[in-house]
């Protein structure tokens, strides 16, 4: 019988009730008394020197309370990059300052150079339009290759558009070059991992508030990690003492990476709130979101796969240009390097792997982690070149992968690119995929499609990701400037109900439902008496938030550790109450019991005793029942999966239909199957969006040519295929207490190569000599590939 409580159950999500009745509290829903409104003046040129800014007309307009320009923030710090990466020659990366408001130069369309605060949003907008700026325009730096050879710079002071030139692992370079030189077969593929615009449905918003009586600041903001935002603002940007700044991320309408980062608007509303001693609110329009949210992907890659004639892999060598846009966003230097290069062995035993990544400044919006972050780029390159190689050698697509899979008896398996995979079973996943996609029946279905004038293709993919981000010791060696543990406090109240304060933040992942399942399972009590508190830095311990499929693996582990401490203390209290030794107490179904007797005391009575400590052995036990744990993972977790899909291509028009998509994932243990399925479906949707529809395009002048929903193709309900999600092959993570791996990004990582592999397969089946089509696979691109 399916469970209805605890780990493995799928209770209805408790947060849904407020969202379904209109009682959610997103940042823009919060209305503080006496609020004023900010509007930003943004550059409409991509690259230029600011000659002058005249704010006098704006200042004189009705309702205007203050106008700010970059000049007002020259004394404060910049928004930093969270990882320091060195080039192959050991030189540190170039790290130009990212100011609150542009100063001296504007560097991308949408770069804010001034802000108006007024009584109403309309007055602020009207006044922002009245600001006069004189910009001496420079040519826009857009194309990455041209950026590296050109003499126009995004940041003149560094005299290059290259941020760094990174090799991973540099010691592998020679051996990899040698192996490729001597290999019986080398497959080469050049590809583009298209830029996507994250487009969380809730646009970013921030409210700054300041209390002159206590000198305390409060920021409500659309963040995936309120403590990280607080740290960045305090330690790097405004210098507000951390203990004077509260950051609240209330309900957040999706993030997908784009709301990890601190943005200048957050600093502006805080500074303005102090100046005016009034709350200051800003809510992005969708147009602003397109221009200023950190975009994702945008790699140009050449990958080579060397193997023998039977398809046994010998080497992977990758050269990538990765766009970082105009400024370094907080994770932008880690995403194309340690979240990408370290995954370039995939699920395969390949002795030689070398990755070179050059990051490039361009006059475009900053680029940073977007659902999957680096790992989709790695998977795409590997899985596309394997398909091409299989075609060249005439080997079956599944067979070539199986032949090279790391085997279950090889764990822990250390790859040539620095990771140690703890566990997995890639053949088992592939077996399930073959069954659920009915690979054996494909040829018959292809014949049916052919009879209807359509080209049918099948695409196969095997992905691995490094999640549960991240072991602080390891990432510290790799250049991370922060630790990546998480934290939880379990507070058992006197009446026996429980508040769990967590560092993770839920913006669609259902933490309010899932974390209580874990605690309920451990304590043997009803999960309805357990509540989660998240998002408010003044209430929660210092955790690092939610991204990188880390919430359950890292913060959930902290919840387990804190709950274990509660159980241990509860045993001591129970032992005292039952006049037994604490070593003899066990907790079974919510009762502390003296082992082997019928003497027991309920969890609620122990909680009450903790807070009414009459006749308490105070020398042995403190009053109260509240425990905190910080959990720092010993390793990454390694979710993996075998994905497959079938497509039909209309040879007349190039239109692609994805008929069926099967995702077989190994997430280790699963706490809430319903939510895991939803996460995978969502990830698949975003990955299919990238594969089929989406690309953020800048023209040569640096204008984003599709900066609205009229022009940027978002995936819609009728773009989604039939989806099968299978997580029956879980191999429990070996190093965290729940045995979980994380499921949020898998779909977005595994689906793009699956789709492209299927379409190329369809075209080749009709005799077209097509080896690759860059995403998105629009009808015109597919048609051109057939007829080009």
């Amino acid at each position, binding site marked *: 019988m399916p469970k209805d409580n605890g780990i493995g159950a799928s209770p209805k999500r408790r947060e849904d009730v407020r969202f379904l009745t209109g009682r959610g509290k997103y940042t823009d*829903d919060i209305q503080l008394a006496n609020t004023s409104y900010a509007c930003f003046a943004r550059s409409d040129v991509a690259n230029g020197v600011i000659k002058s800014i005249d704010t006098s007309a704006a200042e004189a307009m009705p309702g205007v309370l203050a106008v700010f320009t970059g000049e007002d923030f020259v004394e404060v710090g910049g928004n930093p990059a969270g990882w320091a990466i060195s080039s192959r020659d050991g030189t540190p990366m170039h790290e130009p300052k990212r100011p609150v408001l542009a100063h001296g130069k504007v560097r991308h369309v949408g770069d804010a150079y001034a802000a108006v605060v007024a009584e109403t949003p309309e007055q602020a907008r009207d006044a922002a339009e009245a600001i006069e700026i004189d910009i001496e325009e420079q040519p826009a730096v857009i194309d990455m290759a041209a950026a590296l050879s050109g003499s126009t710079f995004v940041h003149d002071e560094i005299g290059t558009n290259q941020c760094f030139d990174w090799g991973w692992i540099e010691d592998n370079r020679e051996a990899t070059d040698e192996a490729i030189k001597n290999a019986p077969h080398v497959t080469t593929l050049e590809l583009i991992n298209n830029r996507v615009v994250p487009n969380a449905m809730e646009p970013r918003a921030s409210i700054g508030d300041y209390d002159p009586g206590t000198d305390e600041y409060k920021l409500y903001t659309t963040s995936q990690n309120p403590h990280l935002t607080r740290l960045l603002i305090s330690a790097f940007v405004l210098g507000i003492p951390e203990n004077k700044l509260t950051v609240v991320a209330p309900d957040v309408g999706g993030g997908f990476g784009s709301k990890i980062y601190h943005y200048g608007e957050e600093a502006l509303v805080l500074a303005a709130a102090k100046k005016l001693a009034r709350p200051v609110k800003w809510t992005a329009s969708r147009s602003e979101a397109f221009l200023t949210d950190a975009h994702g992907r945008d790699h140009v890659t050449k990958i080579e796969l060397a193997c023998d004639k039977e398809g046994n892999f010998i080497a992977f060598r990758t050269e990538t240009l990765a766009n970082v846009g105009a400024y370094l966003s907080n994770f932008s230097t880690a995403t194309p390097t340690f979240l990408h290069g370290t995954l370039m062995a995939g699920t395969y035993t390949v002795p030689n792997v070398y990755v070179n990544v050059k990051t490039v400044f361009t006059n475009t919006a900053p680029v940073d982690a977007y659902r999957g972050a680096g790992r989709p780029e790695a998977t795409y390159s590997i899985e596309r070149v394997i398909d091409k190689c299989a075609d060249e050698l005439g080997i079956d697509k599944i067979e070539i992968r199986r032949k090279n899979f790391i085997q279950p008896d090889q764990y822990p398996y250390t790859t040539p690119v620095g990771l140690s995979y703890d566990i997995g079973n890639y053949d088992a996943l592939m077996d399930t995929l073959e069954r659920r996609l009915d690979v054996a029946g494909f040829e018959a279905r292809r014949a049916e499609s052919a009879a209807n004038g359509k080209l049918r293709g099948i695409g196969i993919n095997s992905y691995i990701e490094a999640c549960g981000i991240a072991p602080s010791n390891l990432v510290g060696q790799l250049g991370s400037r922060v630790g990546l543990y998480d934290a939880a406090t379990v507070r058992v109240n006197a009446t026996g109900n429980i508040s769990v304060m967590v560092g993770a933040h839920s913006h669609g992942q259902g933490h309010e439902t899932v974390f209580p399942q874990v605690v309920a399972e451990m304590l043997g009590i009803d999960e309805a008496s357990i509540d989660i508190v998240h998002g408010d830095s003044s209430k929660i311990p210092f955790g690092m938030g939610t991204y990188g499929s880390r919430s359950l693996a890292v913060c959930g582990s902290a919840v387990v550790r804190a709950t274990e401490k509660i159980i241990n203390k509860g045993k001591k209290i129970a032992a005292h109450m039952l006049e037994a030794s604490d070593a003899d107490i066990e907790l079974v179904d919510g009762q502390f019991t003296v082992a082997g007797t019928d003497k027991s005391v309920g969890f609620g009575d122990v909680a009450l005793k903790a807070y009414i400590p009459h006749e308490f052995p105070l020398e042995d036990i403190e009053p109260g029942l509240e425990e905190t744990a910080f959990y720092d993972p010993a390793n990454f977790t390694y979710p993996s999966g075998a994905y497959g899909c079938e497509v039909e291509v209309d040879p007349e028009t190039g239109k692609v239909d994805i008929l069926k998509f099967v995702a077989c994932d190994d997430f280790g243990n699963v706490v809430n199957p*319903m939510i895991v399925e939803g996460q995978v*479906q969502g990830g698949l949707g975003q990955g299919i969006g990238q594969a089929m529809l989406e690309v953020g395009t800048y023209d040569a002048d640096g204008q984003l040519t599709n900066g609205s929903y009229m022009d940027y193709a978002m995936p819609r309900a009728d773009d989604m295929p039939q989806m099968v999600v299978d997580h029956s092959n879980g191999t429990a993570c070996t190093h965290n207490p729940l045995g979980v791996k994380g499921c949020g990004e898998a779909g977005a990582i595994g689906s793009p190569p699956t789709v492209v592999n299927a379409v190329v397969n369809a075209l080749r089946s009709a005799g077209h000599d097509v080896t690759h089509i860059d995403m998105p696979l629009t009808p015109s691109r597919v048609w051109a590939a057939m007829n080009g």
Partner: protein
Amino acid sequence: MTNVSMTVNGKAVSGEIEGRTLLVTFLREGLGLTGTHVGCDTSQCGACVVHVNGEAVKACTMFAADAEGAEVTTLEGMANPDGSLGTIQAAFQEHHGLQCGFCTPGMVMSAASLLKENPKPSEAEIRDYLEGNLCRCTGYHNIVKAIMAASGQDVSSMAAE
């Protein structure tokens, strides 16, 4: 500034507005009904869908002044009289038809108007009807499933497992 009066979720309301005030702004800021969301500025995302005189309308495309005298229903008005979740709301919860919840007001209001027009829509008809509603959590599979279920149809064939 002019005065506007309408009925929202069965209650007579009125307020001062500018000519350019949008219905969605009046609902959210004038009445504090923040269940209706704004996700775009080109009337494409559908997060703002409400019913005006029984028709689904994107509240970001209508001036508040043009709703003078109208009957408006928002997400807040979709629960049963006893406060429990209405049929469509309950189906969204049951079938995990929402993740971050931001698109949800529009999804529920669009679903309600679809089911009024077409009480037993096919899966394809639902997907087609949701053309104007974006969900970036990309949870369309379960949204469609929830709407099928709310219409009383069997959804076992849509099980993802």
